[in-house]
């Protein structure tokens, strides 16, 4: 279970020497999230929708323990992401959308082995996990090629494999199909759908701009706008009230603009 309680996140806009010691009273900050409250149950598949800069990635990074909230708190499976950062991270797999998050001069296997060791895997367990995940994401044919030679789609599939190394209870995917061509989008979506989605107990959190992804992969949808969580509904509710995720999104955004 993930509890997000009254979380706000402020980023320092610039950092000067005097900011380092907090000597200035009025630092320039950008409010990325404002008073977000959210409960995600075990096994939930949640999509975060919202325009660019809405705060989706920030919220994912807060859940993954890569950022600490300025106000409020987040607990992942009972562990506070600030005070028990390492423990809270143990149950989280993070699929970054950053293509450059791999060592390009290493092969896919070498990359996964390195990150696997960081996730405390070793020996036969590590080897078999890497083989299993390479197979799962369909990179057997290119597993000994340097990542530098990989296409965006292949890197994305490798990123998913890395996210699954620690067999996480919570899998976070940050715009997993952002830079992919239409065919690769279908590939990655099918991969998530068929292989990852089938684990009913695994919680899945996806930040995305694609309504079809939210509709097909998730059972709950959350809309974030200007750092505020403006709506959170189940897919069933959305279908019965709005018909589709797309209509739900546009309707909520329109209403919010008027407000």
């Amino acid at each position, binding site marked *: 279970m993930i509890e997000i309680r009254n979380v706000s996140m402020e980023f320092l806009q610039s950092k000067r020497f005097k900011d380092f010691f907090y000597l200035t009273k009025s630092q320039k900050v950008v409010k990325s999230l404002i008073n977000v409250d959210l409960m995600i149950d075990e096994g939930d598949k949640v999509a975060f929708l919202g325009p660019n800069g809405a705060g989706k990635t920030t919220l994912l990074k807060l859940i993954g323990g890569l950022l600490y909230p300025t106000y409020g708190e987040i607990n992942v499976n009972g562990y506070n992401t600030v005070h028990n950062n390492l423990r809270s991270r143990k149950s989280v797999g993070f699929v970054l959308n950053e293509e450059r998050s791999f060592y390009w001069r290493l092969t896919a296997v070498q990359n996964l082995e390195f*990150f696997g060791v960081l996730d405390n895997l070793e020996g036969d367990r590590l080897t078999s996990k890497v083989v299993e995940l390479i197979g799962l994401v369909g990179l057997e044919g290119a597993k000994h090629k340097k990542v530098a030679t990989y296409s965006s789609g292949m890197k994305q599939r490798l990123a998913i494999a890395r996210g699954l190394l620690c067999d996480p209870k919570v899998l976070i995917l940050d715009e997993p199909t952002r830079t992919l061509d239409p065919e690769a989008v279908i590939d990655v979506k099918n991969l998530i759908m068929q292989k990852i989605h089938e684990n009913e107990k695994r919680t899945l959190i996806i930040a995305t701009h694609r309504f079809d992804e939210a509709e097909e992969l998730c059972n709950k949808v959350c809309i974030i706008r200007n750092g505020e969580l403006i709506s959170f509904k189940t897919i069933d509710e959305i279908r019965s009230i709005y018909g589709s995720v797309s209509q739900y999104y546009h309707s909520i955004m329109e209403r919010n603009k008027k407000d």
Partner: protein
Amino acid sequence: MSYIKAKSFIKRDFIIEFSYKLNFILTFITSIFPVISFFFISKLIAGNSSSSLLKYGGDYFSFALIGIAFIRFFQLAVDTFSGSIKRAQMAGCLEAILSSQTDSKTVVLYSSFYSFLSSGLQLIIMFLVGIIFFGFDIHNVNIAGAVFSFVTSLLIFISLGVFSAAGTIIFKQGEPIGWLFGVVSSLISGAMFPVEVMPSWLRFISKAFPTTYALDALRLALLKNASVLVLKNQLCILSIIALILFPLSLKTFEWAVERGKRDGTLMQY
């Protein structure tokens, strides 16, 4: 698990470094050039060397070889940590590493292991060239004194390196600790000339730099067979500095990472 993690970091860095083959080879070859240069400089000043060299046996080449070889090694100890953080930030891997189940202190320490092995090998090459081709005398080496001096000194420079890495996370550009160490300490700590030849006020300042004690202890152990007992003053100073700086540097680094997570600047460079 710690050993496996250390091995994994070394393997990663070796594969990356070895993939740039020319650079890999040149790194080791270029370490020989300063040895050759200082051999000829020592020829030039032979017979006119300062009496302050007598403390170390009177041979300028041996004196300078120890100075440049160890300063080079310690400089790397300081630079390697911030360098590995910077490379991980620029390559985009830092976030992936820090989202793993390994804590940030382990990451920064293990990230430096390959650099230490590579620089250790360069250090050995420099001394081998000095011994084989230029007559560096190894008959007066006190191994215990040299090892003790080296390890305590190394701990200090690792600490400075970890401080520097924390500085990189907080300030992003220009690692002032590395710069201060590199430029100032090699100038006034007696890397290339004895501190005794400097004016008294500079000699006074040189006492504030651990490099001064480290090089003094290493030279006495390697050239004058000085035992741990003989080096007790230098080793005490070095040990106290190491005992204070090492845990403090790790705490500072941890704080810097938390600070970066708190204000959202961890990935900025």
